């Protein structure tokens, strides 16, 4: 195409205007909302890896829940329409239950199922359908019980004692004891989810095959999947809630980071996840938008309590003080993350700003080491993976920590493994001789702390991989879980944070901002305080 001088000037003007707009906007939590939203168009999203099964109860990983979430809904959901800046923790909102009550003793939940909701296959939603789904994840004697779904959603249903459906649109769940985190856990995804599937589809295709024919109630319905190429969803015109603007959404797995950037630049996709940190600035200069949030993500170290050196609290505190979190965030990760100073991410009601306990202070670290009897430091091993879900760039990050600790005399040897082997090793517990193991995780419910620090969940029985045990903490967390009000629970969870922080049982390092890069024609995308997003508000110009 040959451009005349006038055309060229017009074009330059537009480009400059766009660049200026992008520059003024800076990283925004929600993408530009100029113009009037209108229906139509196909949004193509370049995602960082292939998606697990499209069976929301079985599927692991955030990548999969980001897709499944568009088709499946839980009873209680999170309001993801607000960016992190406006809602540090997403508020709970009714999902497939219009309302619910909790008995005064905190053990019986009564859910009123949303009327007039149909699954994508036309079958109606009622209490029996929800019961069917719960039994699939929980009741070993149920015909459609699925061990994989049960394994993933273990922590949600563990306290459940019985299910009843007093009338076709009412569901009663009785717990063994009060379990305050329950409602929030219903809204979570990533380790399975409680997204409700059409019982008819499970009966028709069976537990193993239903993931090839996903049928939910969500704002989008399944069109097709070509493994390695695309998953296509289309707007559900019969959706009970606010119908999306988009006609279609295509999720395209592009595992190679440079391919992801190239596809975005070539307009083959409209937005990409996990841009390489080095590419963000240049993409912004080219007129692309950056959307960042503050999801409940913590990249953290679990200290090995079976190691004679790590048993010493002063040593653990010294290590915490010797790590330059801000330096790592700015220099290594180009501000795609925030330094983490609390064991809980800011997207958590029990978050406590702990900057003092974990602020960078190598001098004080040296003092503590001397006090602990290691004036010349010591050597130990750090376990991490080379890749994996939410791990960002684990090896360079571990090397950064290695350099930091060398400055206070602690020599660490890195032991790196690829993700699946790592996950197995990690779950077995930190072996003798290893100082600490690294992991990335987090949830909007403070209950997550229980999962990684409770003495009843010491590895290999659970994810407390460092073997940390503090009876006082266990007691406080028990009180938090059995509290009958949210406020009461949050107070107890904050107390638990303080105990874990004081013990320096875990070293939080950074919180991911989960940046997305969007083309200038994408509007209304919101990065909420979650690892996933909704697409109801997105429209294309």
């Amino acid at each position, binding site marked *: 195409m040959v451009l005349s001088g006038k055309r060229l000037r017009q074009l330059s003007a537009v480009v400059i205007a766009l660049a200026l707009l992008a520059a003024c906007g800076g990283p925004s939590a929600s993408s530009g909302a100029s113009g009037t939203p209108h229906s139509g168009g196909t949004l193509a999203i370049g995602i960082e890896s292939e998606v697990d099964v499209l069976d929301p109860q079985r599927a692991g990983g955030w990548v999969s829940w980001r897709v499944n979430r568009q088709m499946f809904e839980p009873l209680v959901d999170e309001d993801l329409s607000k960016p992190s800046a406006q809602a540090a923790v997403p508020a709970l909102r009714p999902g497939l239950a219009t309302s619910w009550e909790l008995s005064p003793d905190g053990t019986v939940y009564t859910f009123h199922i949303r009327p007039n909701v149909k699954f994508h296959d036309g079958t109606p939603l009622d209490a029996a359908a929800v019961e069917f789904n719960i039994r699939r994840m929980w009741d070993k004697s149920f015909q459609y019980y699925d061990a994989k779904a049960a394994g993933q959603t273990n922590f949600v249903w563990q306290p459940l004692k019985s299910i009843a459906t007093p009338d076709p649109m009412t569901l009663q769940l009785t717990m063994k004891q009060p379990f305050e985190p329950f409602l929030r856990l219903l809204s979570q995804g990533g380790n399975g989810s409680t997204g409700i599937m059409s019982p008819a589809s499970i009966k028709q295709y069976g537990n193993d095959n239903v993931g090839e024919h996903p049928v939910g109630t969500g704002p989008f319905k399944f069109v097709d999947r070509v*493994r*390695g190429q*695309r998953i296509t969803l289309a707007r559900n015109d019969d959706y009970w809630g606010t119908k999306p603007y988009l006609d279609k959404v295509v999720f395209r*797995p592009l595992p190679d980071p440079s391919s992801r950037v190239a*596809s975005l630049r*070539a307009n*083959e996709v409209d937005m990409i996840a996990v841009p390489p940190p080095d590419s963000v600035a240049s993409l912004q200069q080219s007129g692309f938008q950056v959307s960042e949030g503050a999801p409940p993500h913590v990249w953290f170290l679990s200290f090995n309590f079976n190691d004679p050196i790590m048993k010493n609290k002063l040593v653990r505190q010294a290590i915490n003080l010797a790590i330059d979190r801000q330096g790592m965030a700015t220099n290594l990760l180009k501000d795609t993350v925030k330094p983490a100073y609390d064991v809980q991410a800011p997207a958590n009601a029990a978050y406590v700003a702990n900057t003092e306990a974990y602020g960078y202070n190598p001098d004080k670290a040296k003092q503590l080491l001397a006090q602990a009897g290691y004036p010349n430091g010591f050597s130990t091993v750090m376990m991490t993976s080379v890749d994996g879900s939410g791990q960002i760039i684990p090896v360079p990050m571990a090397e950064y920590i290695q350099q930091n600790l060398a400055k206070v005399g602690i020599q660490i040897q890195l032991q790196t493994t690829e993700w*699946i*082997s790592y996950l197995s090793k990690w779950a077995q517990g930190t072996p003798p001789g290893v100082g600490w193991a690294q992991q990335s995780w987090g949830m909007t419910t403070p209950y997550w702390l229980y999962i990684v620090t409770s003495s009843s969940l010491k590895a290999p029985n659970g994810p407390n991989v460092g073997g940390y045990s503090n009876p006082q903490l266990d007691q406080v967390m028990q009180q938090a879980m059995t509290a009958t009000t949210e406020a009461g629970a949050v107070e107890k969870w904050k107390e638990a944070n303080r105990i874990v922080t004081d013990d320096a049982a875990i070293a939080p390092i950074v919180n991911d901002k989960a940046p997305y890069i969007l083309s200038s024609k994408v509007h209304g995308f919101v990065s909420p305080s979650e690892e996933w997003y909704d697409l109801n508000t997105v429209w294309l110009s």
Partner: protein
Amino acid sequence: MVGFLVRRLLSTVLVLIGVSILVFLIMQLVPGDPVRSMLGQAATAERVTEVRHQLGLDRPLIVQYLDWILGVLHGDLGQSLTLSQPVSSILFPKLGNTMILAGGSLLICLVIGVPLGMVAARRQYSVVDRGSMFVALGGASVPVYWAGLVIINIFALKLGWFPTSGMYDTRNPGGFEDVLVHLVLPSVAAAVVPTAVVARMARGSMVEALHADHVQMLRASGVPERLVIWKHTLRNILPPVVNIVGLQAGYLLGGVIFVEVVFNWPGLGGQLYTSITAGDMPMIQAGVLFIALVFVVVNLVTDVAVALLDPRTRKEA
């Protein structure tokens, strides 16, 4: 010829069984539990045991292997552990895609490599010869990954002639034409090294053939050069060229795996990588078997072709 074929086919079966045992044993040495990766960080030991039992992973190794191989002999490649789908339904489409890519590359390699070598040999030590062989040497030395990125940058991003990656358009996936447009860049990238190798080989054989006594004799007898080349020389360079093309076809099956990654081509390579990282044994077994099978078949076809072209090898066989 028939005896030769039967012997080769029998040895093929033995090779495949050997490969399957080897892969099975190697995968047992790899640390990591597929069920752990399936159930994620939150899985408790109790749930992991439950799913391991359901998948039959708690049985003795020998039982697991025999169960699998019996299934294969009955045409059943088993179920993927992580996808809960029949292995064949996942792998066959991917194998097809890899064959499309390898086929495209092989075509480029034949159409460009062989004539290039012949032209260079005809004008030995000329600018054309030195130039083309220099390029070929360069091509043979370029890492596929790097070549792929350069090609994407120039032809997809700068010039915008072709899509950057994938097999179909993202928003409006089409049919054959759509695949063809997406096929160009990856097959060129995958063809770079084999084309260079074939060109150099074709040149070498051609040079040798042109200096053969019978060619000197024909030329001295005044036979037109056209006939000397097309009738008396070409036939003689075919066996080595077919041999090297066969080898390159095998190489391509391995080489396209990198190209698949760079161009996000949904082939066997990428699937195999995913399966290996997830410890999905039935998928890995079947994927490796496919590759070994194709490799063995390509070799067999090459040997038969060479035997047909060159009676001397037939006698030896």
